[in-house]
């Protein structure tokens, strides 16, 4: 089970709700993935309207909504968005996203930490999207974040675990769940992230932009499970030389 704050989830795959061709496909993909935590951009919601083409389909499902602050370039804007989201969606869970750089959507470490410190004080369950910086992740943890969400590569880039060496340090040191967010382009990337010991992964582009989002969602779900099982089982170490699988040691011991 994945434990975040006071809740437990059987699925270790989080999904984004953007980029899908149709709300119906999004619903089917979420179902196929078994995902229980779905993030959605507050700026996309037409609050105050009876029907919203993004929110209404999600509210029909048995999932924890994770509103995000995408569009915010500063801590101040993110906090404003968080409070709107809490009022509108009746949840204090929040994916904190502050990316002032619209080209690569890199998270701003300074504004993110400032916002996280204040949001925790305001009673939010904060899951910050952040760079794969081990010190920043510890600082966010100390600020009271319920998890940290370092990036594997630039959002939507499908490049996989480009930050692997830093992610290993982050996972080794973390006392809160580490959720690898952004850049995972294939189920094998998700499996690799879970094999490193990540608590969960978040995927959007690789599923929503796939030719068959529903099948791809299922493939990611299996990869996440496989990677997590492999991590629990303990991966064998890699060697530069071949090692015979029927060693001579028994014979040698008799000599």
């Amino acid at each position, binding site marked *: 089970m994945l434990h975040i704050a006071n809740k437990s989830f059987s699925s270790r795959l989080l999904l984004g709700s953007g*980029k*899908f061709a*149709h709300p119906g496909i999004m619903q089917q993909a979420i179902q196929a993935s078994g995902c229980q935590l779905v993030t959605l*951009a507050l700026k*996309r919601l*037409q609050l105050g309207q009876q029907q919203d083409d993004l929110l209404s389909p999600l509210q029909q499902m048995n999932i924890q909504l994770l509103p995000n602050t995408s569009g915010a370039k500063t801590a101040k804007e993110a906090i404003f968005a968080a409070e*709107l989201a809490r009022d509108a969606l009746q949840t204090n869970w929040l994916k904190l996203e502050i990316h002032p750089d619209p080209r690569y959507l890199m998270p701003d470490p300074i504004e993110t930490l400032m916002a996280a410190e204040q949001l925790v004080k305001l009673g939010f369950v904060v899951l910050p999207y952040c760079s794969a910086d081990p010190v920043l992740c510890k600082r966010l943890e100390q600020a009271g974040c319920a998890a940290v969400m370092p990036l594997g590569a630039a959002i939507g880039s499908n490049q996989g675990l480009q930050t692997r060496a830093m992610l290993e340090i982050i996972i080794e040191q973390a006392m809160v769940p580490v959720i690898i967010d952004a850049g995972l382009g294939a189920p094998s990337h998700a499996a690799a992230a879970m094999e490193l010991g990540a608590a969960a992964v978040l995927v959007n*582009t690789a599923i*929503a*932009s796939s030719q068959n989002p529903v099948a791809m969602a299922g493939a990611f779900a299996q990869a996440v499970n496989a990677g997590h099982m492999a991590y629990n089982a303990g991966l064998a170490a890699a060697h530069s030389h071949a090692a015979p699988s029927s060693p001579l040691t028994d014979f040698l011991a008799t000599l």
Partner: protein
Amino acid sequence: MSFYTQWQQQDWQTLQLQSRNFSTAQVQAALHKTRLALSDLQALLSPAALPLLPVLAGKAQQLTRQRFGHSVQFYAPLYLSNLCANECTYCGFSLSQKVKRRTLNSTEIAQECLAIKAMGIDQVLLVTGEHERKVGIDYFFDVLPLIRRYFSSVQLEVQPLRTDEYARLKSLGVDAVMLYQETYNAAAYQQYHLKGKKSDIHWRLDAPDRVGQAGIDKIGLGILLGLSDWRTDAILLAQHLQYLQKQYWQCRFSLSVPRIRPCSGGNEVSNPISDKELIQLICAFRLFAPELEISLSTRESAEFRQHVVPLAVTSVSAGSKTQPGGYSVEPENLEQFSIDDNRSPQQVARALTQQGLQPVWKDWDSFLGR
């Protein structure tokens, strides 16, 4: 170095000759790159790339889906005034044009806003002619708070302003400023822009810098296709974009590539661009700048938009009226230019949905970017 200085060092003729001088091999090399240099973009814009258009379009579509998913943003223009102190040979709002002039007052603006909202539109582009004295900064300060209440995103397409004016507009709720250069060809620019402040090319070229310095979230660049050699204009726009992206790294950028449409001035198009070439232009920019927002307006026909939007376009206007009061106050007044795609926003949205795209009516909030 300012962009103006950089631009002055360019020789239009040399660039224009260069723009045709690429081989198929150079085009193919550019098609295989993930990070394109300006010379790669030149290759993709060259005549040698036309036979490879299916490959270019395929790659552009893939990059668009990866970056923007299946989303297409919807907006509509709100023409506030057709008063203009400029004389531009291609424009129906020009000073010498005998059209009925009108500037909307607060009551009329509210009526127009409600009519646009009733079409389902939540993102608006405010447009005026360029008349500093009568439709200047004081008018914008007056009407913006009213308009801001109706829409989640407000973009502006008016005369170039000063940095301090842009800063004030930002605080009143402007999310984006469109500043189309029309053409980067100095000689042609002077021929087309005969009178008024618009004839000052320096003031216009530096305007995106002033928007960036004011910290407004988005800057829209554009060229008016038909005025000059489109390939050369496109390369200079790409240089401008590169310069601005480095200077104002927190800004988003959008591209518009309108073709001259018939207007009441009745001009001839001296440098036409074909449908195929326009697709080439749009797709080449997608490969050059995958993050660039690209908009395609109702100047283009329903059929053309139907085929091109799924390739690389991220934002469309729909249901547009291009005269002040056109939605509700006085629908029969003269337009700035005639539009070609007359479908309602819901019709455009339904057609895109059938093509596997998702119309996005709202993607911004008034508290962002202040």
